[in-house]
């Protein structure tokens, strides 16, 4: 906790600096691109999770190149990894009665879930703190690229280990990451490689390795999948899924013909073969460009980046250095077209507001908005883009922002742990436990709770949910009794010299929005402020004199701003 407090102090010290918007001629990079607030903010949006109030100023103190180098290595030393203490899975033989075993199993699953919740919180804290924003951004990207879900993997240790694998390789080498992922316990479990044996091959991992991880559909045949599956036989997880190993007697050591080549392929030589395919760098480069730019790259440009990635021997840092210095990355469509994911939106709101928020609030909130960390909806990951936005999630995003600002009650918005357990007491004949919410939802509604389940005994039996306990960090803990947004928008506006309605709207809009405010939105916000002021009988320029009412008005204005269509970009 200490490091976070210190960081806050540092930030508070520079709070007074408003965002400089290219008041003096900005230095030009070698690329000819002007290094200004708009472009710096764009980099913060895409290479991180948005800019805190003072951070753009900070970025503009040095050159564009210098800032990109900092992004590639991180701004400060990394946080220590979370200390993880995983429970041991109970064994039936250690218990005299079935009932005792069942109870131990319940405790075990609850404890596993608690650890996953803590870890999710730690991860979100990394995103908010912004020590190495690009790294955390990429951990999230790889999580949606090489997907595994706790619903299938069911062991926290494996999910945490996979997340740490992504962190280690986030800005490393793509080839190494693919080699690592075909022996990653969570992936082996998620894509059934424990069932991929010499005598009864399972094609799941081989199929997704080609279709989603390296080549894309249409660049291999069903026969290639069958043969590839044979190459992957023998890699399996330990019983506790904490590790993986190669079991030679389950490996098919015979010759395989994959993509026209015949050899005694094993997992590594199969991966090497895939990486040699010309489609592979194109596939990976396209995924990266679409994620970071939000628009489909032109064919020529894609080809350029694919070649570059291959020529850099799959190293990712040169790729991002090139991208972030590319003037095309700052083109109008790239600046304006990308819709942020729920995690990006909520972490972005938190950062732009300069708040500290219990990270589980963001975990729960993003889950409700369709992005449950550790539980992507399918092996394809999250669809992204416009698929994030439905009527329910768009209204819901605004409600979540209101919650962060403190004008909407947490308990009116957050529903439950996105991975709430339904207990599967007793027999687990097939080892299949209800490790999560049984509904495979990925789109959730914005807010509102039914009559409380907890209070009625009868209903409890019908919808049994494990009582997560206060240590769980579930909904019961995060009511407004525990959360006060520590913001002072009145002071913030005054420091920036924004007192008149137009100044306030422009200043707050600029601080809270990832992209510039549109004219239609600006007019509506001005009208809101005018009505609010006339309700308080204050002249334009005098809002700040209204004390708590001024702060209330500004917070409601901030809520409005973060609910705008513009706020969903970034």
């Amino acid at each position, binding site marked *: 906790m200490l490091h976070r407090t210190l960081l806050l102090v540092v930030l508070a010290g520079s709070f007074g600096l408003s965002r400089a918007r290219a008041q003096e001629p900005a230095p030009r990079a070698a690329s000819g691109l002007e290094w200004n607030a708009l472009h710096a903010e764009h980099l913060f949006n895409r290479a991180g999770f948005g800019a805190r109030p003072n951070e753009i100023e900070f970025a503009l103190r040095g050159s564009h190149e210098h800032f990109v180098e900092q992004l590639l290595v991180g701004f400060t030393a990394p946080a220590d990894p979370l200390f993880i203490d995983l429970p041991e899975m109970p064994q039936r033989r250690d218990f005299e009665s079935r009932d005792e075993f069942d109870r131990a199993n319940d405790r075990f699953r609850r404890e596993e879930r608690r650890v996953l919740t803590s870890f999710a919180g730690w991860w979100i804290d990394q995103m908010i703190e912004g020590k190495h924003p690009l790294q955390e951004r990429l951990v999230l990207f790889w999580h949606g690229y090489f997907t595994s879900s706790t619903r299938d993997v069911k062991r926290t240790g494996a999910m945490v280990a996979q997340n740490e694998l992504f962190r280690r390789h986030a800005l490393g080498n793509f080839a190494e990451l693919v080699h690592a992922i075909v022996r990653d316990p969570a992936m082996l479990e998620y894509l059934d490689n424990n069932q991929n044996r010499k005598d009864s091959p399972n094609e799941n991992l081989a199929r997704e390795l080609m279709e989603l991880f390296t080549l894309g559909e249409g660049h291999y045949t069903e026969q290639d999948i069958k043969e590839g599956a044979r190459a992957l036989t023998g890699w399996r997880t330990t019983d506790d899924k904490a590790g993986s190993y190669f079991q030679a007697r389950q490996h098919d050591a015979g010759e395989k013909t994959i993509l026209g080549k015949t050899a005694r392929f094993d997992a590594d030589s199969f991966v090497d073969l895939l990486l040699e395919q010309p489609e592979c760098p194109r596939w990976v480069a396209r995924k990266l460009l679409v994620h970071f730019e939000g628009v489909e790259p032109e064919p020529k440009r894609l080809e350029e980046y694919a070649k570059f990635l291959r020529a850099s021997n799959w190293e990712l840092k040169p790729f991002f250095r090139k991208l972030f210095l590319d003037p095309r990355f700052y083109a109008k469509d790239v600046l304006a077209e990308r819709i942020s994911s729920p995690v990006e939106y909520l972490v972005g709101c938190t950062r732009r507001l300069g708040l500290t928020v219990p990270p589980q609030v963001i975990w729960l909130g993003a889950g409700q908005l369709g992005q449950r960390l550790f539980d992507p909806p399918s092996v394809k990951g999250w669809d992204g883009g416009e698929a994030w936005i*439905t*009527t329910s999630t768009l209204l819901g995003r605004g409600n979540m922002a209101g919650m962060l600002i403190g004008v909407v009650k947490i308990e009116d918005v957050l529903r439950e742990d996105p991975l709430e357990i*339904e207990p599967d007491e007793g*027999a687990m004949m097939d080892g299949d436990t209800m490790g999560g919410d049984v509904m495979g939802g990925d789109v959730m509604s914005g807010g*509102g709770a039914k009559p409380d389940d907890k209070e009625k005994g009868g209903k409890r039996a019908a919808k*049994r949910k494990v009582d997560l306990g206060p240590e769980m960090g579930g909904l019961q803990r995060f009511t407004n009794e525990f959360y006060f947004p520590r913001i002072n928008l009145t002071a913030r506006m005054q420091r920036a010299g924004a007192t008149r309605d137009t100044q306030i709207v422009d200043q707050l809009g600029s601080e809270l929005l990832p992209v510039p405010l549109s004219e239609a939105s600006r007019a509506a916000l001005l009208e809101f402020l005018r009505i609010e002021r006339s309700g308080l009988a204050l002249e334009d320029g005098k809002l700040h004199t209204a004390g708590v009412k001024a702060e209330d008005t500004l917070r409601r204005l901030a809520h409005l701003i973060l609910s705008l*269509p513009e706020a969903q970009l970034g």
Partner: protein
Amino acid sequence: MTNLSIDRRALLAGASVLSAGWLTARASAWTTPALFSQDSGRTLILLQLAGGNDGLDTVVPYGDDAYRRARPSLGLKKSEVLALDDYRGFHGSLKQLRRHFDAGRVAVIEGAGYPEPIRSHFRSFDVWHTADHRGRSAGDGWVGRLCDVAFKDTQNPNLVVHVGGSVPYSLHSASHPPASFVNPRAYRWAGGEAETDAYEKAGGMEPEEREKKPKKREGESSLDFLRRVLADGQQSSEQVRRAVANYRTPVDYPANDALAQSLADVAALVSGGIGTRVISVELGGFDTHTDERNRHDQLMRTLDAALGPFLDDLARSEAGRKAMVVLFSEFGRRVAENGARGTDHGVAGPMFVLGHDLKGGLYGKHPSLDKLDDGDLVHTTDFRSVYATAIERCFGVKHDKVLGAKYPLLQFA
């Protein structure tokens, strides 16, 4: 106009009493938005029993010796079932369902399942949700695919609604995403009144503009896309809340029961004329590995207490009488009870189809309790036959276009 405004303000505030000053201030700015669709087609309601409902404890083969042998402590006696014939009867708590059955409003499809059954909750639900054994890798949910076929040109955001928490994968669709809410009264942007006025102007469009709003077009900018969805959301939110707020029913739903309250809201949506054609609801808790007798009895009571009045309520409107309710679970349970007075994950089970405009009765074939597959029932009807029948009946499209294959239709509709 004034009444409408009162109504609207009440909706915004989520309360019924408001000061008159507000009304006069902004009443004129408000006109009734046209409903997205007045389409009075049939509504399909999907009720998911999550956790694996014990079919043998729902439609009980009490007349089968094999049943009593397999369920020495759990088995229901003749006196504990509502006998339909010498062989089978409803669980004793399903009294209202029995009443509706006798009136021809309940079709029971026995032995519903699919080949190569999966005993994992999630993966088996994926099969039910996609109507495809490959599960999610097959693509969108089956309702999403249905909408692509039956509602290709419909952009009504109320078309598909989920009342509950997480949306089931069956509704997963990029082209027809569902509106979803736990409580329709909370399906709204939670700003105050002044902010809401500004929100409508800033984000979306003026009411008149909404009616002319362009459909999704190629090359639409993200900002225009967001504005369009926001306008849809504001309108959908208001229509849904208005449908629920205006709904009056003399039917008594049990108070303090989440399922019954959800179904009361569903009844309001069905007859609300807001273009909703598919509604999904869930009841969880069916994973009865232990102490099944108490837990399953309670579930049956909950189900009966909610479905009984719901069917009575549906009888009151034309839209309600045309609606079809389909109950399903991801799997049944094993035939033999386990050592903990419960049952483990099994395979086939009965499906129920309810409604006022169908031929009730028994369909399919009760699976044999003697010829088991490794202790499990063998399914006798593919569940996709039920989907197929519902698709053709409710939406008038060829089911194989949605399901990707032909399945025999059942005679309940």
